[in-house]
């Protein structure tokens, strides 16, 4: 069945992400988590392509309707961290080629091919129609380990 195969792919994907070491950007990771994670879940770098991260970082003064400008030094280290750990540079990309490539340059994780594949079964009423969740952008509302970067299925609790 389609969803089962996607689910197992998802498991492989997330496992690959978790074992992947963050190449030489330890301080960039820290700055990313503290600066970006101050307002929202620090979305794992692997969830978006380098082009998407660049598009986001180049317009932080207009960041989904808010101003999220960073000090130049912080911006530079966050950029390096996100680029070197993006989907393009991930093990999943190396292993599966273009299997999970998303056309264009989406600015939202929820618009990526992989996200749609693994959330296809989740009815809207449980998310956008659920006052305790509200939006697919709020990963932590259902994924209990989101703040720490864990998105495995066992950690999912959809609030009712």
């Amino acid at each position, binding site marked *: 069945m389609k969803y089962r195969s996607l689910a197992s792919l998802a498991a492989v994907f997330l496992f690959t992400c978790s074992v992947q070491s963050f190449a030489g950007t330890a301080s960039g990771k820290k700055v990313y988590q503290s600066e970006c994670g101050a307002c*929202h879940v620090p979305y794992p770098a692997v969830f978006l392509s380098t082009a998407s991260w660049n598009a986001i970082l180049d317009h932080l003064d207009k960041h989904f*309707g*808010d*101003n*999220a*400008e*960073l*000090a130049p030094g912080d911006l530079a280290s966050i950029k390096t961290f996100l680029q070197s750990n993006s989907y393009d540079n991930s093990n999943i990309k190396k292993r599966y080629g273009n299997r999970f490539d998303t056309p264009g340059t989406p600015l939202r994780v929820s618009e990526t091919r992989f996200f749609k594949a693994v959330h296809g079964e989740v009815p809207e009423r449980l998310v956008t129609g659920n006052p305790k969740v*509200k939006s697919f952008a709020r990963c932590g509302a259902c994924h209990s380990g989101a703040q720490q970067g864990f998105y495995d299925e066992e950690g999912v609790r959809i609030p009712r």
Partner: protein
Amino acid sequence: MTKNKLSAIARATLLAAAFMSTLAVVPAARASNLDDLLQLYQQSAGRPFSAENGKAFWTTKHTPVAGEPSRSCADCHSANLDNTGKHIRTGKPIKPMAPAVNPERLTDTRKMEKWLLRNCKWVLGRECTAQEKGDVLTFIKNFK
């Protein structure tokens, strides 16, 4: 040593000194705590800072984007700084601003400068003046 050699050394020394002095000037004055920051702002502000004016500024509505609802600091942070605020757009809870309730506030000048930049641009559509920033910080600092 010849006279020429000596003047060459002198020139090199002067050049080096000039170079070092440019390096020394580069890092702008940085404030390490709230009082330093207020002093820094005061240098470019016309009047002494006033908690009264800061309070008025806090609730003043601005319309940075034509056609969108107006915004004020208090819209997200609440007019009563003891209260937890709520971002009018994202719904994100914002911890109280009053240092008496939330001791973390006004302890990190980097954070203060960062958020003053972001939030002034978002609420007013421009950076705040040193006077405005000083007034607001004074208002928050003395909030009871």
